[in-house]
C-alpha cells in the first residue's frame, strides 16, 4: 500500500508544465489537475430514472430490506448543504463543489448496521464497495442537488452517492441503495483493476497502489 506520490521520475526534456498555482495550496492530491467545468464519466448510457419510480433502500447482510424511502419520503428527510472538493481517478479535481443531500448518518440512524462493509448499488447495474466506517460520521451523503438545482441525469440524477474523501467513482451515480456486507467484496471498477479503497491523497488509483 505504498504510493508513488513524490517519486522523482526521469525529467522529460523541455517539459515545464503549467504555472504552479500557489492559491490551490495543498488541496490538490498527487497526480491531479484542476478543472473548472464538471466532467462526465460513466461506463454506459445514462439511465433516465423518473422520481416516481425511484427509491432508496438499505439491505441487511442477508439481503432483506431494512429501510426504504420513496422520492417524496426521501426529500422530506433533513438535508444538508455540502461544500467539498472532488477528485476523479481520471485526474481531474474540482474544488468547492456545492451539493444538497441527506447524510448517511440520517439514513442509517436507528438501523442495526452491525457490518463493516457496504455495497452501494445503482441503476444501470453499477456497484461500488466501501467500509461502513467511511460512510458514517458525516463523511457520506445521498445527493439530490448540485450548485443550487436538482442533480442532472448525466451527473447522476435524480440522486447520487457522495463520499468526497475517496476517488469519485465511489460516489455512485443513479444510486438506489446499499447492501451491508460482513465481508468486503469488489464493486464494478474495483473488480476491473481499480483500487479497492481509493484514497486520492495516497494516489490509490489501481490495484496495488
Amino acid at each position, binding site marked *: 500500500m505504498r504510493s*508513488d506520490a513524490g517519486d522523482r521520475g526521469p525529467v522529460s526534456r523541455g517539459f515545464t*508544465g503549467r504555472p504552479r498555482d500557489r492559491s490551490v495550496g495543498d488541496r490538490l492530491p498527487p497526480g491531479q489537475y484542476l478543472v473548472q467545468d464538471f466532467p*462526465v464519466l460513466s461506463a454506459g*448510457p*445514462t439511465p433516465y430514472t423518473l422520481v416516481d419510480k425511484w427509491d432508496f433502500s438499505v439491505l441487511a447482510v442477508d439481503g432483506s430490506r431494512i429501510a426504504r424511502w420513496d422520492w417524496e419520503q426521501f426529500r422530506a428527510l433533513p438535508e444538508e448543504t455540502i461544500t467539498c472538493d472532488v477528485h476523479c481517478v481520471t485526474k481531474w479535481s474540482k474544488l468547492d463543489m456545492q451539493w444538497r443531500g441527506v447524510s448517511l448518518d440520517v439514513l442509517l440512524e436507528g438501523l442495526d448496521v452491525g457490518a463493516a462493509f457496504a455495497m452501494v448499488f445503482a441503476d444501470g447495474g453499477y456497484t461500488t464497495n466501501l467500509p461502513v466506517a467511511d460512510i458514517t460520521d458525516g463523511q457520506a451523503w445521498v445527493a439530490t442537488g448540485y450548485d443550487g438545482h436538482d442533480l442532472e441525469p*448525466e451527473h447522476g440524477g435524480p440522486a447520487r452517492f457522495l463520499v468526497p474523501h475517496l476517488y469519485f467513482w465511489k460516489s455512485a451515480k443513479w444510486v438506489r441503495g446499499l447492501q451491508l456486507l460482513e465481508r468486503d467484496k469488489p464493486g464494478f471498477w474495483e473488480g476491473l*483493476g481499480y483500487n479497492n479503497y481509493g484514497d486520492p491523497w495516497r494516489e490509490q488509483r489501481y490495484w496495488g497502489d
Partner: protein
Amino acid sequence: MARATVLGRLSWRVATVTSVAPETSRAVTVVLDVPGWPGHRPGQHVDVRLTAEDGYQAERSYSIASPPGDPPLALTVERIDEGEVSPWLTGVAGPGDVFELRGPIGGYFVWDGDDPDPVLLVGGGSGVVPLMAMARHRARRAFRTPMRLLYSARSEEDLLYRAELDDLAARGDGFDVVYTLTETTPRGWTGYDRRVDGPMLAEVSWPERHTSPAFVCGPTPFVEAVANSLVLLGHPAGRVKTERFGPTGGGS
C-alpha cells in the same frame, strides 16, 4: 488467447520514444519502447506522467492505438491547446525522449474478439483511438466477426487513420467504415455530413441489434447523444460501453 490481466501493482515504467508520426495537423502517433510492458487488451489506456526539471509532475490518460502483441506500444494523442501533457507529446517529444507510463488500465471498454456478435464502433474525434486498436486486433488475428465503425470528425483533414481504415474496409472480410463530417466536407463527399443522430445510427447499426455490443468513445456530448440513441433503438444498455475523451472527459 492469453489475456493481459492486471494483477498486482501497476508500476510506473520508463517509456522511451522511438518515433513520432503526424496523423493530422493536431494529432501524432507516438511509438514507445517500454521495457517490461505486460501487454494489453484492445480498448485499454495508459497513464502518462511527465516530470519537469523542478520535480513538478503532470499525469494524463491516453488510449492505446496499437493492437495487443505488437512489440511497440503506440499512443495517438491529439493536441489540446490549453492542455498540459498533450502539447508536449505532440509538439516537443522526439526519438530518445523519456517519460513515465503505467498500465494497461481499464478492463471494461475492451473487445478481445471472442464475442461472436457483430460489433458496432462509434467514435467521435480522437475517440476513435481505442476503437482503432480493436479494428487492428481484428485484422491481425484474422477474425471474421463483422465490425462496423461509424467515425465522426469535423473535417476530412481531421480524420485519423483514414488510409488504413479504407484499406481494412477494402479487404472485404467483414470490416467496414462509415464517415460523417460535421463542419466541412470536401467536394464530391459521399459520406454523411452531420452530427451522429438516431436516424444515422438506425441506418448504420446492425439489424441484429438486440445482441450486438457497441463501443462508443468521444467527447461527452457525443457519447451521451450516441448512447441515448442506441438505447432508444433497442440496444440493451448493458451492451453499450462508453468512454469519454477530450477536455471535459479527462484527457488533455
